[in-house]
């Protein structure tokens, strides 16, 4: 749990560092440049458009190419390559305020702006992309009062754009039969008669317009009447007429024309029937979209909710069903579906409503001079699942989702395998893994939707089966005890060049194997930390076999088997001990294991005595010599450094297996960051040669024995039991750990085979041991092709592309591929690994199927490396290492457009 949080935090930090743009915190007064894949200003649509924002206003607006040339360079650029940017939406109707609780049927006194909480926290509304709303005193009275236009966020004093934008007239059925008005008598005394309540109109549809006209007539003589209606009517405010029936629409239109009033209608689909008439009268409409299967109006019939084509409607605006801002996206989607070009719908929720409500000088568009109210959408806004990624109001970040972990990539073709592709499909990426693949996948809220575009071809990231990216000239031979991951860090320029070529993973292997064995490690070519680039420290055991005599390999596996046995025994003993302890049985305590005291009689002790050791090479400028006393007991040895006399006792312990010496130099305290390790081979009766290593440094060591009498020192034996009889684990031996993992079938083996007769022996050896293995080919292998096919041995193809030494029939890639052999490509290079796709292309030239080449770079390689459970496929649960190509990767004219490693795009 905690780790997850930490990881996310770490990821966030890295993101901040890498893409300083979008994460920069904007302070008041700061300007910035916003660049986006699509920009709709409310008036026009611009591909790769950008905005310059200073002091909360838009100062420039246009295509990026145009804006870029004018930039002074003092502004941060926020780049959203996949986002769709629109002005903050303007909802021409909302339920944030009202309906008022006053009693009057006709009164101009109620002002919606009174009910708007200027200090209120309306941020949750911003998640709908709406930044400006019309607030309404209600539609429950014939004349409910005055509407207003306000922003949802901002300085309290500045939120109100229009205190009084309109007079709200309603022709809805709910206005009929209002309660009578009761005047409270004053003074409260028996002298004062209590008047009966005053009746209010309208009583029904027939008297609505009449009541309105009556009220106007009355207000002409009595200034105070109807909430000072005369005053507000006289100001010439537009009328906002809410009407859903044709009769009312006609009636009100006639009255407005009579009185010479301007205004607009708020209506549902019914209004389409008098569209032409309204256009002629110049009366715009706020179209309130009805939801399907809405409530049946009282006494009415369920209306159809379909709309005619909306393209021709002039400058109309949209209002969400039920005035619920949460339904705004539905209204947009539905309206867009009835338009020839869905993009037109943006104006319906930005510029048109702003214009209708008289606030178009500030909001509703992003042309120079407008308020910088901006919504950055994760997808085209007329898609049902689209949501804002950021909302800016007056140039300040006002809202952003709490977490943005998901990405959806949409591509024309998703290449799953040679016989399975999804056309017009999507891949959902969450937390760096592929979470879903399909025609239409889930869109978690606020996920970034990335469109591959026309001809896009989504394939898994390519895998290099053998390379040295990150070794950076490190040429020392490395054995099974070395750990390459220590060389890795944050990916740099070299890694970036490889990643951008499409190679997202590589088996990192040493340049030279020590005594024919070493380990490899699968590393990502991009990532912000070592931890993010690797999954495990050892991914694979690498072996070299150059003759059919596999005795060295045998010896190695022999040691490994013993080592494994000691662990198995320990596990068993521990299990037994636990069982006994739990059962309360007596635990028998063994005496300290007495290891043989004396050297074996018949054999001469090969090690005991005084050794002169010379250390040279590596980081050591001049050879150094030391005198060491060694004592061999059984297969364990222990020694002390005598000359030069160390300031503290330096102990050397280790084992002698055959002629192989492995040990650790134990230096007390924290003098050294790590314990140096010795690996040596007894090369003669009194000599040894090997290497001494610490961390990633290593030096060669040579030694000669000068005396067979060891200097005596106190030998401490390792106990095999703890004080309470708990068995102690065997000593961990780094060099045998990879082999143990192989024997436990946790990691596979890759064998570099050379020599004519070697392959059959290798195949036999590993097949018998049931160890999963693959082979690197050399030229001789063409004679063994049937063996490979017969045993289905996975093959890593060599760097040289052809084998045409008199054997034209055998081009390994083609031949083996067609025979159903799992293939992989390797680069044997550092940043030269970026030529790996080219290498595969050569094989396509040689006749390999394009899909087979793609398979070899992805599934095949993953299988060879034993990592097919996490890389090389576009499947749920796999690492999101993906490439967006234009066209099939191995077709002429195709190009790689974008690279994602762990779901994060690799930047140029």
């Amino acid at each position, binding site marked *: 749990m905690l780790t997850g949080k930490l990881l996310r935090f770490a990821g966030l930090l890295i993101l901040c560092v890498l893409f300083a743009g979008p994460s920069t915190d904007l302070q008041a007064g700061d300007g910035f440049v916003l660049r986006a894949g699509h920009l709709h200003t409310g008036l026009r649509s611009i591909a790769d458009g950008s905005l310059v924002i200073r002091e909360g206003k838009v100062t420039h607006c246009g295509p990026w190419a145009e804006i870029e040339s004018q930039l002074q360079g003092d502004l941060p650029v926020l780049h959203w390559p996949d986002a769709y940017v629109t002005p903050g939406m303007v909802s021409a109707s909302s339920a944030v*305020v*009202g309906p*008022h*609780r*006053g009693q009057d049927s006709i*009164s101009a*006194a*109620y*002002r*919606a702006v*009174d*009910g*708007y*909480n*200027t*200090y*209120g*926290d309306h*941020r*949750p509304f911003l998640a709908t992309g709406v930044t400006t709303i019309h607030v309404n*005193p209600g539609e429950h009275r014939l004349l409910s*009062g005055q509407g207003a236009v306000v922003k949802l966020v901002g300085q*309290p*004093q500045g939120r109100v754009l229009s205190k009084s934008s309109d007079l709200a007239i309603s022709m809805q059925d709910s206005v009929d039969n209002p309660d009578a008005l009761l005047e*409270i008598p*004053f*003074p409260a005394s028996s002298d004062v008669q209590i008047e009966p309540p005053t009746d209010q109109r309208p009583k029904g549809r027939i008297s609505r317009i009449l009541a309105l006209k009556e009220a106007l007539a009355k207000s002409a003589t009595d*200034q*105070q009447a109807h*909430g*000072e209606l005369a005053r507000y009517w006289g100001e010439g405010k537009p009328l906002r007429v809410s009407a859903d029936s044709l009769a009312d629409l006609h009636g009100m239109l006639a009255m407005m024309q009579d009185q010479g009033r301007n205004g607009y209608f708020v209506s549902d689909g019914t209004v389409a029937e008098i569209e032409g008439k309204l256009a002629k009268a110049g009366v715009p409409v706020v179209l309130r979209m009805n939801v399907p299967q809405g409530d049946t109006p009282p006494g009415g019939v369920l209306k159809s909710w379909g709309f005619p084509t909306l393209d021709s409607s002039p400058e109309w605006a949209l209002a969400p069903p039920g005035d619920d801002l949460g339904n705004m996206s539905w209204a947009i989607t539905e309206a867009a579906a009835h338009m020839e070009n869905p993009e037109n719908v943006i104006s319906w929720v930005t510029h048109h409503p702003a214009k209708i409500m008289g606030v178009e000088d500030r909001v509703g568009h992003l042309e120079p001079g407008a308020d910088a109210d901006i919504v950055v959408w994760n997808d085209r806004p007329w898609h049902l699942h689209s949501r804002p990624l950021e909302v800016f109001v007056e140039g300040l970040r006002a809202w952003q989702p*709490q977490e943005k972990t998901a990405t959806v990539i949409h591509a024309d073709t998703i290449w799953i395998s040679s016989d399975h592709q999804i056309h017009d499909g999507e891949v959902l990426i969450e937390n760096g893994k592929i979470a879903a693949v399909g025609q239409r996948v889930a869109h978690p809220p606020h996920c970034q939707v990335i469109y591959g575009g026309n001809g896009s071809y989504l394939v898994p990231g390519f895998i290099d089966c053998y390379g040295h990216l990150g070794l950076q000239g490190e040429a020392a031979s490395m054995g099974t005890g070395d750990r390459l991951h220590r060389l890795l860090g944050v990916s740099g320029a070299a890694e970036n060049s490889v990643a951008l070529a499409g190679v997202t993973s590589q088996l990192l292997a040493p340049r030279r194997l020590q005594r024919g064995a070493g380990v490899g490690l699968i590393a990502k070519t991009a990532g912000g930390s070592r931890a993010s680039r690797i999954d495990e420290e050892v991914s694979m055991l690498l072996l070299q076999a150059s003759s059919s005599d596999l005795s060295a390999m045998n010896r190695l596996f022999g040691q490994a088997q013993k080592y494994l046995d000691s662990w198995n025994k320990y596990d068993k003993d521990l299990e037994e001990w636990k069982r006994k302890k739990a059962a309360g049985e007596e635990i028998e305590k063994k005496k300290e294991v007495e290891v043989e005291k004396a050297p074996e009689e018949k054999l001469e002790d090969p090690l005991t005595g005084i050794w002169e050791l010379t250390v040279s090479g590596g980081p050591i400028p001049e050879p150094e010599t030391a005198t060491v006393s060694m004592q061999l007991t059984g297969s364990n040895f222990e020694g002390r450094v005598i000359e030069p006399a160390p300031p503290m006792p330096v102990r050397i312990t280790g084992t002698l297996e055959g002629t192989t010496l492995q040990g650790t130099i134990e230096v007390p305290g924290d003098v050294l960051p790590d314990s140096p390790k010795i690996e040596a081979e007894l090369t003669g009766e009194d000599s040894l040669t090997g290497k001494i290593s610490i961390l990633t440094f290593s030096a060669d060591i040579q030694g000669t024995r000068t005396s067979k009498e060891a200097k005596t020192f106190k030998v401490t034996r390792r106990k095999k039991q703890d004080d309470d009889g708990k068995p102690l684990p065997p000593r961990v031996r780094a060099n045998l750990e990879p082999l143990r993992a192989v024997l436990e079938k946790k990691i596979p083996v890759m064998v570099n085979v050379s020599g004519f007769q070697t392959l059959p022996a290798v195949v036999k050896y590993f097949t018998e041991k049931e160890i999963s293995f693959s082979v690197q080919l050399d030229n001789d292998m063409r004679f063994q092709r049937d063996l490979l096919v017969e045993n289905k041995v996975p093959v890593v193809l060599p760097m040289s592309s052809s084998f045409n030494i008199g054997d034209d029939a055998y081009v390994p890639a083609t031949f083996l591929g067609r025979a159903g052999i799992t293939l992989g490509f390797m680069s044997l290079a550092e940043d030269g690994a970026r030529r790996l796709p080219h290498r595969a292309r050569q094989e396509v030239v040689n006749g390999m199927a394009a899909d087979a080449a793609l398979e070899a770079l992805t599934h095949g390689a993953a299988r060879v490396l034993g990592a097919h459970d996490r890389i090389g496929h576009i499947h749920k649960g796999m690492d999101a290492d993906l490439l967006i190509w234009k066209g099939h990767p191995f077709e002429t004219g195709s190009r790689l457009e974008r690279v994602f490693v762990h779901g994060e795009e690799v930047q140029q």
Partner: protein
Amino acid sequence: MSTLTHKMLIFSVIFSVILLTFGAHSDLQGQSSPKVALTGGKIITVSGAPIDGGTILIEDGIILAVGDGGMAIPYDAMEVDCTGMILAPGFVDAHNPGGLDIPNENLAVAPFVDVFDAIAPSRFFFEEALRNGVTTVHVMQGNNCVVGGVSRVVHPIGLSPDEMTRLPGLALKMSSSPKGGYDRLRHRAELRGVFSEFDRWHSDLSETRYDQESEKNEDLNPLPPEEARAEGKALIREEDLDDRHRHLAYLNDGRLAAWIHCGAATDVAPALDMIEKRGWTGRAVLVLSGDAHVAVNEIAASKVPVVLGADLIHRERDLITGDVEETFIPEVFRKKGVPFAIQVGSSNVLPERYLNYQAARLVRNGLSPEKAMRTITLGAAEICGVADHYGSIEKDKAANIVMWTGDPLEMTSWVQKVWIEGQLAYDREKDARLERLFPEMPEEDAEKSEPLSDDASTDAEPMPAENGESAVDSDAVESGDKEADEAKPEPLNKDKKSQDSEAEPAPAPKPAPEPKPEPAPGIDSGIKGGL
């Protein structure tokens, strides 16, 4: 002095039954002579530095002089030894509807009402105010109104609202936050409606008055309506005002202050707008509650003082993150330099109903004890506009003085005596209600650290009347006793002096003594309610 106390005790016994209903305070009125000298106590003047062992000389309810121990005491002054005690000005409760029998909050628009009609002198509220050191209460109706009634400043003693009243007609209460059952649209529409209707009535009246005057007076020429209205404003007489508009007219011409309740930050701007547009600047106060403190910048710019709600801490949950943020409201205003007073709560279970507890909360949250003390005395008096009479111990101010057993902001201190306008208005020793709550017990039992147990032996020992006398009279508050006092558990109703008397017995509840029959000379009954 001892004779006086003795007499008083005899009175107590004789008239106790009849006068029980008048509460604890009335029995003590009139026991002081016109001249009183309070000597030996530590005086917290609030307006200046505290004086140790100082003397306050009171004549006719007014502080004649405040000085140190060396000040000469007139021969005819009754001297009260306050050694070991703390003398502080009585607290000023800046806004409290607690003294009202029925708050006038049913009618939304009721500028014609006056709290005078609803003040109930017998309410427990006033008794309790006295017991806790409050000597001045601004009685104002609550926040649940559009335009409420007129408030007044009263003393918590007196038998009628007239007797209690010190300043009638201080301010008109209004609210810019919705009344119960209203929303903001309806509320503000009505609030605007009140003043737009008043303006019309007022200008019509002005015109009529000008026309009337011009008919009588030949110097005045008939004028067109606009000019007649402007000229006629000055001609409006008291008798021209009708009941409905009278208080609004007073508000209009500056005789009443405007106290406006804002229950949320969004209601502050409309209130300030109204204050500015209607010319109430300088006599307006905002009564805040809810999150209104968020609008502190606007309030600070307008220089309008505020009265804060009793719940001094505001908690708000962030809608996005869900984090709860806590704000200590007085700190917000202190930082911006806005003068503020604090209200007490109305709950009977929370200590927020004590002004000194509220002030102690200020100290706990960072205010200095001096400033906290000032907030509930002089500061509150300034906001109410009565600082020239109340809120501090200064020459020429009303002698509203409270004798505390310790620091008034300590919860373990209590009020021992209260003088209002120089008269002893409260004495804890004679507090009948406390005696009923905590019957005294013999000293031996008290020493057994069972101060509140109702021991059977209490009845065994009769209490001689002289005991009370010796308790008050012993003058034995010696500094040496202090440690002994602290170590000893003591009955709550006993003051420190009584610790010294031997064998303080506790009889059954002592009936409240009788007040002096004649009306208190210090109370100016000439001041009547209404204007």
